[in-house]
């Protein structure tokens, strides 16, 4: 195998320009794909943050009394996984409101009775899945003594729809860029093969097997893919550090932002995908040339 790797490296050196173009093309495609992945990973985290990890408020009917609480809690727990549940009595809710509206206490003095309902604040374990959260909330809303359930369904649903559309567009773009990289890799191998026609003819004449002839091309494809992936990720990393610090500095005071670079797992998958891309381009080309 070392012999094949040495041969592939020598071939890359002898066709420097062609190989450089391929590696740069793969790296740009990987850059675009990684950029989308980075965006989706961070956007999902931010949305999860906005959604406070599945928090919901259950407003109870005026007929509810605190003695009914254990029974209601038990019924809610049968409907789904609840990580945390806290009862907020109507008097506690009013105190909270007063605390939040310091300076407008005159308004509260005009109230003849507490208009706020009893409520339960819960955190559902729905793993950030909006549909699961919605279904859980609807089941709770159908319970006796429950007036309504609030979990940000209005704006969050609309935002998630836009986000889904964006995600689909992203996938399509990623696919397109990967196809372009595949096409260019396949063509580089084809050009390299034709530039070494005499060498391959001689190899065959002296008894080289198909494996002996093809393996250096495959190693070359794998190296191109891997190096393209590494270069793409390095460019993204440099761009990330340049841009993310500015975003965090300017926006974190206004909105919840937790921007991070791609996880090790995602980077591993990207590198594997780009290496596979190099190999697959080579496979397609050699299959066609040597058939």
């Amino acid at each position: 195998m070392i012999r094949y790797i040495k041969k592939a490296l020598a071939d890359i050196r002898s066709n420097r320009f062609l190989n450089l173009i391929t590696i740069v093309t793969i790296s740009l495609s990987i850059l675009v794909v990684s950029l989308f992945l980075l965006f989706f990973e961070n956007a999902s985290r931010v949305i999860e943050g906005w959604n406070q990890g599945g928090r919901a408020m259950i407003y109870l009917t005026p007929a509810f009394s605190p003695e009914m609480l254990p029974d209601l809690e038990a019924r809610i727990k049968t409907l789904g996984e609840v990580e945390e549940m806290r009862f907020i009595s109507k008097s506690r809710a009013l105190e909270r409101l007063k605390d939040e509206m310091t300076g407008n206490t005159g308004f509260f003095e005009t109230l003849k009775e507490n208009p706020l309902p009893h409520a339960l604040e819960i955190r559902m374990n729905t793993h950030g899945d909006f549909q699961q959260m919605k279904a859980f909330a609807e089941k709770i809303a159908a319970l006796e003594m429950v007036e309504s359930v609030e979990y940000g369904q209005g704006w969050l649903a609309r935002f998630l729809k836009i986000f889904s559309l964006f995600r689909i567009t992203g996938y399509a773009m990623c696919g397109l860029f990967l196809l372009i990289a595949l096409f260019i890799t396949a063509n580089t191998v084809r050009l390299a093969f034709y530039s070494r026609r005499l060498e391959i003819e001689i190899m065959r004449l002296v008894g080289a097997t198909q494996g002996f002839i093809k393996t250096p091309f495959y190693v070359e494809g794998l190296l191109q893919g891997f190096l393209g992936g590494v270069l793409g990720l390095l460019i993204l990393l440099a761009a990330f550090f340049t841009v993310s610090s500015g975003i965090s500095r300017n926006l974190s005071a206004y909105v919840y932002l937790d921007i991070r670079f791609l996880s090790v797992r995602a980077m591993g998958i990207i590198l594997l995908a780009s290496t596979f891309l190099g190999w697959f381009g080579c496979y397609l080309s050699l299959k066609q040339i040597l058939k």
Partner: protein
Amino acid sequence: MNLESSKHAIIRLFNVTKRYGAKMALNDVSVDIQPGEFIFISGPSGAGKSTLLKVLYLAEKVSEGQILINGMNLARISSAKLPLLRRRFGMVFQDFKLIPGRTVFENVALVLEVAGEKPAYIRKKVMHVLRTTGMEKKANALPPTLSGGEQQRVAVARAVVGDPDIILADEPTGSLDHASAKLVLDFLMAYHKNGATILLASHNLHLLESMVRGRNIELEQGQLVKTSTLL
């Protein structure tokens, strides 16, 4: 055909015909070649000399007839076994067929590399063969920097480095001056004396007659017209 000698023939051709469209390159050629023979394939240009060698190393398939090499029928050789057959041949071409981007050493070593030999053995064997062909000092040179005679000596070194039992040489002296041609033929003769079977196609029978002994197979328009012994 002599039945006893046929039994031991290393190469046997039975009514071999090769057509390229309407053109008949080989026409019903039958011949037995014994191990250790030096065979000249002579005849004018277009007589079918190169085609005869090509059908032996399966660069071309015969249109009709059968070829046996050591009892192995070439028509039944699978593509997986073809490389193994070719490793039994050493081949020399008029245009040398050396890889221009590889050094002399690497060109010769290729034969042993494809056979999966170990690097230490390859180094030792290649340097030995280059020494015997007088090309040791040019081991690191690239073929385009060498003269025609030197390139052909490298090609001959490549042909013998794998210790093949059959050497096929297609006009090996065709593009060389007399002195270079003599060097190449001397080397082939020396290898032949070790027991190898050599088939050498050439239109220049006079040069061969003056230097080597063997059997001459004369082709004309694809047909075997005469077999004679060169003394």
